[in-house]
């Protein structure tokens, strides 16, 4: 399937393509772009070996361009890949057999989890699956103090014995995490040398390389996750790269990272924990790109899939980053796109609890049996059933008609489980479910934005995912948001983000020091060294336009707990004392904004130096099309009865692929596209912009929506 009709199918073989490939649970999405703004995209079913789906997709792209796969790949200098291999490994607990070497006396930190429990009171909550069982966690005699001084020498003999024991146990990867190794990694590095001597085949994950920063639980957890997911990701990427090379690919394969940057295969394999959000991060990157193109610097992206609803915030075109992530019950403290997930998707099941309250999710019908309307044996009502019954989803045109839905089955499920018990009609029940799910979603958006100190009314809402644009209009009304953007590339959004992303490496060096005694010369030397390491890691010179270096300092008031990452204000590579003064001033102001107070008299501590090296790629060009007629009637394909309230309305249905830039669609109406349905609610109007994004303007009726 091609989503853009304006490409020139008679491609010159010399045209260079950048390919983005995102492998999701159901589909593998691909977007290819040229320097002059041509775009072609397709979807293909994902396969158990993800590389098969990728090759199938590349073949489809080549077919669409009417060239051979070899010719296409030979003209691809760059493929950027969003993969769920590491994520699935952790979610399914199917990773490598991992052993842990840690400072003697601390081998249970991974179980203690700093006393964190997902639910404080639940007695049903089971202990997390131990990806490193206790018998594979070995304490090693060694100790550094907080300044990195050795106060107990590394017991090398104990390390050798431990490695031998782990090898005998069939261990495939070893994680190493010693206290204060982020200050002095000497002991960890020596252990790596010993492992290489004793068992060179093992995958080794050092905490001082994975996450060189204070707090041992966060560090050991991230290091273990890296060891657990690394071997499978490394093997998959090597396998994929070989397959692509067999088909003529000579360019560079890069992987989307959780922080929104991309890195080469070698680095990705070493730091698998950095690609756990590889897929969704592509979507957020795309959100920032579309936001910039459409003149919206502040965006909240919402992605509604089959089982979940993901929310992320982009402020001033910069996606928010967090180091607070838990994935599959393991703490991963690497900087990642801040994506908040709730269990409300198209497959979420509506039910009535013992107190008579109507609830939606977190149980999901999944894709099998799926919603009742799929006709695969599912009998419980889901959000998709509601959208079918209310007329928002066309049962005959789901996924472009590739799948037929049964409205009667949807109605029966809603009647039996919700309408009859509550003594209301199926339509009333469906409207009620719709309201609950909209409320849950808008509460999630409100939560994410206010937790970060933002007001959602200052943002535009960008809806992606199959059902995101069905609900976004209502959520915008509820949240006081004026604009909803449904990108034209919504069905392949993450792959589009892969194409648009820059290369990025983040380096961190811990440096505990009070500001008054800070040795600026040493700081400059540290930053220089960090930049050098980052350059070695980043690679990709052939595909990068130029490099940008961003320096930061993690600071806090002495004796307090709140850290602030402050960008260093410097125009050159060296930081002068004037630069530092300006940075300190920024720290006070940022502290005030985040934590409601500043104290210029208080001593400031420096905790970490951070450096982002960004390989800026030539900006993806998307050519604007000129506006045509406002009248969208050429795209009108039908009328349909839908329910926004108890009384039905007959409203126009538009074929999204026939709509043209400049078309203005008054609500209520429905726009159908392959994989996406857009509902324009009463009182709203939608404009097709110069890049064929659908921009919905929302009339504010807060608190009065039905």
């Amino acid at each position, binding site marked *: 399937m091609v989503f853009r009709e304006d490409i020139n199918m008679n491609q010159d073989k010399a045209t260079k393509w950048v390919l983005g490939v995102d492998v999701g649970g159901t589909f593998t999405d691909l977007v290819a772009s040229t320097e002059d703004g041509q775009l072609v995209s397709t979807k293909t079913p994902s396969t158990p070996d993800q590389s098969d789906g990728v090759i199938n997709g590349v073949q489809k792209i080549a077919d669409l361009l009417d060239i051979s796969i070899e010719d296409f790949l030979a003209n691809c200098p760059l493929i950027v890949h969003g993969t769920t291999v590491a994520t699935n490994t952790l979610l399914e607990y199917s990773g490598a057999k991992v052993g842990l070497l840690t400072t*003697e*006396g*601390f*081998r*249970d*930190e991974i*179980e*203690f*989890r*700093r*006393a*964190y*429990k997902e*639910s*404080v*009171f*639940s*007695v*049903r*909550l*089971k*202990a*997390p699956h131990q990806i490193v069982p206790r018998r594979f966690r070995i304490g090693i005699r060694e*100790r550094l*103090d*907080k300044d990195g001084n050795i106060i107990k020498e590394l017991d090398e003999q104990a390390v050798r014995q431990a490695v031998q024991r782990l090898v005998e146990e069939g261990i495939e990867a070893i994680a190493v995490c010693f*206290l*204060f190794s982020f200050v002095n990694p000497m002991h960890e590095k020596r252990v790596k040398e010993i492992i290489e001597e004793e068992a060179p085949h093992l995958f080794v994950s050092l905490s001082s390389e994975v996450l060189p920063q*204070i*707090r*041992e*639980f966060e560090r050991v957890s991230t290091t273990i996750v890296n060891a657990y997911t690394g071997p499978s990701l490394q093997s998959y990427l090597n396998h994929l790269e070989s397959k692509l090379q067999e088909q003529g690919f000579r360019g560079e394969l890069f992987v989307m990272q959780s922080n929104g940057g991309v890195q080469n295969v070698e680095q990705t394999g070493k730091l698998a924990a950095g690609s756990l959000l590889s897929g969704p991060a592509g979507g957020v990157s795309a959100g920032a790109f579309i936001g910039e193109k459409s003149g919206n610097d502040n965006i909240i992206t919402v992605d509604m899939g089959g089982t979940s609803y993901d929310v992320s915030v982009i402020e001033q075109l910069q996606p928010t980053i967090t180091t607070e992530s838990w994935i599959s019950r393991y703490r991963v403290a690497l900087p990642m796109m801040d994506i908040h997930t709730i269990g409300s998707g198209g497959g979420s099941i509506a039910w009535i*609890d*013992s*107190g*008579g*309250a*109507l609830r939606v999710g977190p149980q999901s019908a999944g894709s099998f049996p799926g919603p009742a309307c799929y006709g695969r044996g599912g009998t419980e009502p889901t959000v998709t059933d509601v959208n079918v019954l209310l007329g928002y989803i066309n049962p005959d045109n789901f996924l472009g008609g590739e799948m037929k839905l049964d409205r009667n089955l949807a109605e029966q499920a809603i009647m039996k489980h919700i309408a009859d018990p509550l003594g209301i009609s199926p339509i009333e029940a469906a409207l*009620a479910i719709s*309201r*609950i799910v909209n*409320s*849950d979603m808008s*509460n999630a958006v*409100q*939560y994410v934005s*206010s*937790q970060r100190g933002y007001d959602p009314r200052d943002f535009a809402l960008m809806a992606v995912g199959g059902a995101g644009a069905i609900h976004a209009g209502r959520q915008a009304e509820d949240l006081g948001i004026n604009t909803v953007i449904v990108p034209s590339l919504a069905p392949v959004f993450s792959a589009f983000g892969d194409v648009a992303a820059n290369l990025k490496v983040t380096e961190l060096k811990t440096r*505990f020091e009070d500001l008054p005694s800070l040795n600026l010369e040493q700081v400059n030397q540290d930053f220089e060294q960090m930049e050098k390491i980052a350059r070695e890691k980043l690679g990709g010179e052939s595909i990068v336009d130029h490099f940008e270096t961003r320096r930061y300092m993690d600071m806090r*008031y002495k*004796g*307090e*707990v*709140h850290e602030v990452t402050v960008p260093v204000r410097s125009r050159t590579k060296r930081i002068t004392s004037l630069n530092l003064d300006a940075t300190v001033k920024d720290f006070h102001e940022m502290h005030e904004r*985040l*934590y*409601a*107070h500043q104290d210029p008299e208080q001593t400031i501590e420096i905790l970490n130096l951070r450096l982002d090296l960004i390989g800026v790629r030539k900006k993806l060009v998307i050519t604007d099309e000129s506006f045509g007629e406002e009248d969208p009637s050429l795209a009108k394909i039908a009328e349909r009865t839908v329910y926004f309230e108890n009384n039905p309305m007959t409203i126009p249905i538009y074929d999204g692929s026939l709509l043209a830039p400049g078309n203005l669609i008054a609500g209520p109406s429905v726009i159908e596209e392959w994989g996406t349905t857009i509902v324009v609610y009463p009182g709203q109007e939608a404009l097709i912009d110069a890049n064929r994004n659908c921009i919905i303007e929302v009339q504010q009726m*807060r*608190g009065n929506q039905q």
Partner: protein
Amino acid sequence: MIEAQIVYSKLQAVCRQMGEALQRISRSPLVSQDRAFATAIFTNELKLAIQHQYEPEHLYAMKDSVDHLFDYFSFDISDGDILLVADPYNGGTKGQTLTMVAPLFYHGELVLFPAVRVQIADLAGEFPGGFNPDAFEIWQESMRITPVKLYKQGLLQQDVLRFLLANSRVKSLYQSELDAMYACLRYAQKELQRLIKQYGQRLIESVYTMTNYSNRRIVEHISQYPKKTMDSKITFASNGENITIYVSINTSTNQVAIDFNGTGMQVNTPVNASLSTTKAFATWPILAPLADEIAINEGVLEAFEIHVPKGSLLNPDFPASVGFSTFITGHFISGVITKALQQGNTSTKLYSKIHGPGPQAILFSPFGMLKETVPLFLVPGYPESSEGWGPSALFGDRELVSAEELEFNYGFKMVKREKKANQMIVEIINENFVFNVITIIPEVENNTYGNITIQTNENRKTFHKSSTGISIRPGNRLEFVYERTGGQ
């Protein structure tokens, strides 16, 4: 109901965000790491509309403190007033936990308004931090802050503030905590005004609908108990003296009656529990299976009728000390309730133990050394829960201290934190200065809830009960032993 669910969820969000904002802006580790606070919203009839808490003690104390403030000020409450109270004998739990309330008026009428409870690092008393093993009256623990207005009609009462700050060893931290609490209340007021404008009468209607809902869920739950009457007793000790808590539980069609008649008389140690503390810890074992499913509101509180004899350990006469009640006595209150439920053949899965007291230490510089003495509340481990992993529910949402941060920030070198059978063992070396140490350790005859060993150059001493008068010097070692589910 559906309309109410949706509207009420907006109110819940305001309450939760108030707490998250407090946690974000607070400078005190008690709030940002130990989460020793709660937030709530009340109706104009002083009914609890919604409450969020991160540690269990606040369940009733929030409402009881608000009731007391409104009783005290009666008709003398105006728009812009900020009311304060910290008094275990007037709705509170322990002396250093402060309740701040921001009555809100809309078109001249009292409407939904926010309140917050926060543990302050020090509010005077004999020792920094408010925990005194030798205390027999509350002034040895902290000052009593009886109802006072910090703001009158929007104006800060400088004399009140000066007085409050003058009576703390952590003046600047205290000031910042008051500022943070005030900022959160103002934020909540603004959001409540927005919701009132947006939803009007529907907002308050949603509170009553969801209050009924919470109540209905609890009633439905208790109706499934195999026995309508249950009882039990539990014995623990304080300073060598055995104390018995006796409880009988009677369930009717719409309420659980909990009667502590027969419980021992109040004692001359700080394990007495204020009435609000007792009610909270008595309620949680019954609420626990539902805690993730229902909102905490008046409907929850109304489901319980709790009788505690006056002058007993669990409802002492003024001015008995109460400082250890939330760390020690509360666990035994929950323990006796769980025991009764289990003897009543309720599901042992649903009603497994949620308690598990363990040792902790409070360290502070010798008196007179510093202008501000910030106590260090040292809880480096926890007793494992009866489910065999993680802490028990009454540990709350507290974050265990990082060994590296402890060494970096306080100069205490942790050299061990590991499991040993059913124990967690933590060893720490003081590499800093001289510190005075207070130990808080639960006691019970013929059993152990863990201990603290202090090894100095001269000797090694293991403490099995709460103590004071201990001093540690650089090089001295502390060892904490935690027993799974408090040793029982």
